[in-house]
């Protein structure tokens, strides 16, 4: 026993976690006939039998990349990608960019952000501790605390309660931290790709809470999940959301892009809080505690705070250029620039593009329709002259607030919505 624990302590890696602790189904769900991943974990060669490279990535992500994590990550991010036939939606994407290998933090390649819906295998990955190392065979969600009756719901019961489908953009609060010019900085050094959009299917949190019946004391909802730190007295990641958000458009999702949510993305159950930075969208949700006060957890009270003490909540107005890519060579003349723009608490009203470093701007076209909580795809036809060009994209929300050229820095590196700048060569 001690040897086993020692081995886990020594090599603990949620990605490469051994099979004994994890039993999950091939499709990423956990409440059906169990399928041990031990074969994959122990036989790296077997992974290659899953299918062609693109399928590999999908399959492995569906598996949550828990097994054969080394190989999965390598294939996902490395050599398999170069030779892979890009799926139709990914526009020659080159794989996730790892910022932290354990727990896995990886951002989307900007080329993968060209489409409205980000394929799950290119959706950014972030958690403090990695996926849970022990999964129950039958996942349940318990609602307790300031309620009239404690309820425990199975995945099946939740699925039967509804299938609200909604595209929601999630952005890590630290997205762009690596681009802040901070003399010293803590945390994952994200560049621009810790943002993605998926179509989530689930049930409004309000409907689930109604089952339990809230008391008037229920003012904050503590979201407890199955993940935990590998060791020590590290606090759990346990954030809360206020009542108006819980009874607003927060929902509990069980599908991502019409598939069961991959383990790495918080499956089988993930809270989705539209408009808020991603840390509010708790992965691996197991309990909702209805409480009278805000969570006093480290990641509420100390983490995710701006310097003035105010909490990090909704996303800031921001845009990202998905094409052209930095350093790309293009021909002089007409060029289409495109990307995404989003905001947490309103809607995107305009995106302007500059090809001369911000001296002159022209309006981009906004594609599709307004979907609150989701980004807006945009494109602009511009003309570039021979030499080098600095392309900028600036989003403006419905209150007229535009992205700043340089966002105010803060020690935590949160909310960097500086205008994205892409330098290209024009031949």
């Amino acid at each position: 026993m001690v040897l086993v624990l020692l081995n886990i302590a020594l090599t603990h890696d949620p990605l490469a976690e051994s099979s004994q602790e994890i039993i999950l189904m091939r499709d990423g769900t956990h409440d059906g006939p169990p399928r041990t991943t031990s074969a994959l974990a122990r036989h790296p060669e077997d992974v290659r039998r899953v299918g062609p490279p693109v399928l590999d990535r999908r399959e492995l992500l569906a598996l949550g990349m828990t097994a054969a994590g080394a190989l999965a990550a390598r294939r996902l991010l490395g050599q398999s990608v170069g030779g892979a036939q890009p799926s139709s939606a990914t526009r020659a994407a080159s794989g996730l960019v790892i910022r932290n290998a354990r727990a896995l933090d990886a951002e989307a390649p900007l080329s993968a952000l060209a489409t409205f819906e980000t394929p799950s295998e290119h959706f950014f990955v972030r958690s403090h501790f990695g996926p849970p190392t022990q999964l129950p065979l039958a996942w349940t969600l318990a609602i307790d605390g300031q309620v009239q009756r404690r309820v425990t719901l199975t995945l099946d019961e939740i699925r039967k309660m509804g299938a609200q489908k909604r595209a929601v953009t999630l952005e890590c609060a630290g997205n762009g931290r690596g681009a802040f010019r901070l003399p010293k900085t803590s945390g994952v050094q994200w560049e621009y790709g810790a943002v993605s959009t998926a179509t989530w299917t689930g049930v409004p949190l309000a409907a689930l809470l109604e089952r339990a019946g809230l008391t008037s004391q229920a003012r904050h909802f503590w979201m407890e999940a199955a993940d935990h730190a590998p060791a020590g007295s590290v606090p759990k990641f346990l954030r809360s959301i206020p009542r108006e958000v819980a009874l607003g458009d927060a929902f509990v999702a069980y599908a991502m892009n019409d598939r069961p949510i991959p383990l790495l993305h918080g499956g089988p159950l993930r809270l989705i809080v539209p408009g808020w930075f991603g840390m509010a969208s708790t992965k691996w949700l197991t309990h909702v505690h209805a409480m009278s006060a805000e969570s006093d957890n480290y990641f509420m009270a100390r983490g995710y705070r701006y310097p003035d003490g105010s909490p990090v909540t909704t996303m800031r107005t921001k845009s990202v250029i998905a094409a052209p890519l930095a350093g790309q060579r293009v021909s002089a003349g007409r060029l289409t620039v495109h990307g995404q723009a989003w905001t947490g608490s309103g809607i995107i009203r305009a995106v302007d593009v500059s090809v001369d470093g911000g001296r002159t701007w022209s309006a981009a076209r906004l594609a599709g329709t307004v979907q609150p909580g989701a980004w807006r795809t945009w494109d602009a036809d511009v003309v570039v002259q021979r030499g080098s060009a600095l392309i900028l994209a600036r989003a403006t929300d419905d209150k007229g607030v535009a992205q700043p050229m340089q966002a105010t820095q803060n020690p935590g590196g949160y909310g960097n919505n500086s205008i994205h700048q892409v330098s290209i060569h024009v031949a």
Partner: protein
Amino acid sequence: MSRDGWTSMAMTWRLLSAATAAAVLGCARGDANGSNTGRAGADSGRAAGAQASAVADPPPTPGFTSARGTPPTQTAAAVAPAAAAAGIAPPPPATLTSRMSAEEQVALRALPAGPGHELVLATCLTCHAATMITQQHKDTAGWNKTVAQMIAWGAPVAKEQQATLVAYLFEHFPARAAGEPARPAP
């Protein structure tokens, strides 16, 4: 969980980690040639082979190549003798790397040799990858704060080791001057 529960967990962890550290450091000398003793059973040969090839031929990893330059391609074992002379970190113990992802093994090489190197392997990397360290840059006060937080959370660092650890982190991952970009502008 009760406070006592946490305390007892933390104690257990400290004991385990101390044993782990001993194992890691022990193996660092006895088993530094990349052989894979961490795996048991009939699969070990195959798995070790896969690991060895992962080390010998690291795939392109955009995260590392963009942030740290192209990773070296030699095997850890091959560079070991020259490494010592050049001040490059010795290959990490196989017990530590046997189940690490290829990316994490590449990340390990960004931890330079020197006083405190083994301490980092034994204390920090039980919980997280080297990238968590190598991508951050702090002054002494900043690293002190981080290390103190980690110790409070159960990192198995003895009081007398703390200064060595902080000195290592500051020496190799110091804060950049204010206004200096984290990396070249895109």
